[in-house]
């Protein structure tokens, strides 16, 4: 939807009321294409070391505030300005930021962790960039600012071939967006999501239903494969044996569950939430502790597993996660001992919690 009274330029770039979030496709492709256009100027600017600095020194008008402000560590306001002056003539920037008959305004940048926000002349946009590549963020912010301030300067890149940009005759009014074919040649704005997530962490699993609730400590290993929001997941847990009691028979219990299912992820700005639904198969070993002639039989449990988790939103690398799980076993094994007979059944429900690290590859 396009805001009423918006200009053609705003409508073409999808600006709406408030903030628009860029998620790698669509609008970001346009911005990335424009980045490629400005690439030559950027390189030349780096070579000559004349990237400019903010504040009065850079804008050439003593007493004016910094052209790029904000308590952002990634990207730094300076870095945005250095990128911006390679795209748009400095005079254009100053004159547009000052505006005819208006007070001087600055470009505002905010670091939101996995995202960052750029505000230019009342236009705001948030970009998601989980890898926190600050130089890349600076380029993206400068492109956005250049599009708002002087898109014509971007298209007539000759003006900036030898930065700092040469002054142009006059600030150009907003023009139509770049041709559509530019979008098709654009590279992806951000690195793809990891293909594999490997999760590892300590866990506590408790069986409900036994006389003494056996608490098993151990480690969890889970693996997801795929970049989509719904991906297959395979998991297992190595659990230390624990003592419990069933029908008065003291037991040492050991369990090795393996589950296979699907994980659906709901990505967020800071946290990705996910839910899992799996089939679970577990090996269960019970050993009587006090019987005169103990045995150690092993059984198989089959059932379903439900899991919920949250992971710090990052494109790649390590990210902490927490998860809860419940395994439901409709027909768990029975424990039998002489002379008592049937001592009881192993738990119908196993609850577990895990805190660990997820590695995106």
């Amino acid at each position, binding site marked *: 939807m396009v805001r009423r009274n918006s200009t053609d330029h705003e409508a073409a770039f999808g600006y709406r009321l408030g903030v628009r979030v860029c998620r790698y496709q669509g609008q970001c492709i346009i911005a990335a294409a424009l980045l490629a256009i400005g690439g030559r100027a950027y390189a030349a600017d780096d070579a000559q070391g004349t990237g400019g600095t903010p504040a009065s020194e850079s804008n050439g008008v003593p007493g004016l505030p910094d052209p790029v402000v904000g308590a952002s560590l990634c990207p730094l306001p300076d870095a945005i300005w250095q990128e911006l002056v390679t795209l748009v003539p400095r005079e254009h920037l100053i004159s547009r930021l000052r505006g005819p008959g208006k007070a001087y305004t600055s470009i505002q940048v905010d670091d939101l962790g996995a995202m960052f926000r750029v505000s230019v002349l009342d236009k705001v946009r948030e970009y998601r960039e989980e890898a926190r590549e600050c130089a890349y963020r600076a380029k993206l912010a400068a492109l956005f600012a250049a599009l708002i301030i002087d898109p014509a300067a971007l298209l007539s890149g000759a003006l900036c071939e030898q930065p700092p940009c040469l002054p142009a005759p006059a600030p150009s009014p907003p023009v139509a967006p770049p041709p559509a074919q530019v979008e098709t040649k654009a590279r992806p704005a951000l690195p793809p999501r990891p293909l594999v997530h490997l999760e590892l962490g300590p866990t506590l699993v408790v069986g409900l239903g036994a006389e003494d609730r056996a608490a098993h400590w151990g480690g969890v290993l889970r693996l997801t494969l795929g970049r989509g929001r719904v991906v297959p997941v395979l998991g297992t847990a190595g659990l230390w044996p624990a003592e419990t009691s069933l029908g008065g028979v003291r037991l040492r219990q050991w369990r090795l569950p393996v589950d296979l299912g699907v994980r659906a992820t709901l990505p967020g700005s800071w946290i990705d939430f996910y839910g899992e639904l799996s089939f679970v*198969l577990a090996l269960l070993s019970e050993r009587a502790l006090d*019987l*005169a002639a103990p*045995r150690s039989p092993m059984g198989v449990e089959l059932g379903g597993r439900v899991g919920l988790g949250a992971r710090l939103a990052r494109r790649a690398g390590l990210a902490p996660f927490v998860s809860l799980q419940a395994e439901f076993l409709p027909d768990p*094994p*029975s*424990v039998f*001992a002489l*002379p008592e007979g049937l001592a009881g059944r192993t738990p119908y429900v196993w609850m577990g919690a895990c805190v660990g690290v997820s590695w995106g590859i």
Partner: protein
Amino acid sequence: MMRPNATSKRSWLAVWCLALASGCGQDLNVGSDVLFTSRFEYGGSSFPEWRSVGGGANAYTPAGDTIEVSSDEFHPPGKFAAKLTVTGTAGNTAGNGASFVLNGGLPSQAYYSSWYYLPSYVTVGLYWVIMKFRMSDLAGNPAELFDVNLKNANGGMSLRVWDHQTGTDLPLVGTDASTDGPNIPVEEWFQLEAFYRDAFDNSGRFTLWLDGQKIVDYPGATGPTPWVAWDVVSVGDNLTPEPAILYVDDCAISKSRVGPTGLIAK
């Protein structure tokens, strides 16, 4: 021709069905506290359950007494029981009768369980012992300790426990030895289970349950040595009518209590 994806789906279904079939309703037998059993289910009269154990034996004297495996009155879920038949009990001062014996090699404390069946009322002239515990004195000579006896009371059958050390009956729980004691059913199986802890001080103990109900609880010295013998017997003096028949089944020694509902074999 079946499509490949259909084949794959059916294969997965088969795997899951197989896994479910193998994984559900399993019994995990974690072991046993039962140290000795005699269920008499072998069908013969060689009594290997008793005779194959060190100190184990069966005996019957005089010539008229018999022990045989019978299916006349078996204790469910088995098919057979031991039938102990005794005759010539008048003036039986030698303690003749039909006996299953475990002499020694028993734990210092354990539960001793056996099921009995009286096919008819028997008049007990002097005594009718159906379970015995014996000890060994410091010189190593076996000696009598406790006898579980059937007796007549209130027109029926009852129990008493004779203490050879004191020459008296042990007091019954909640009352004293002079009372008539609990009723023993005729033509019904009943279980006697005793807990025996061997000690020559006050940590010794002898407790007896009838069908799960405690009827004797004796704390005190038992045997002076770790040696103990357990007999399942039919030894009587002046029983009428003769022959006096007693069925026995599902004898067991266990580290934990068997009780009327316990199992001694799976």
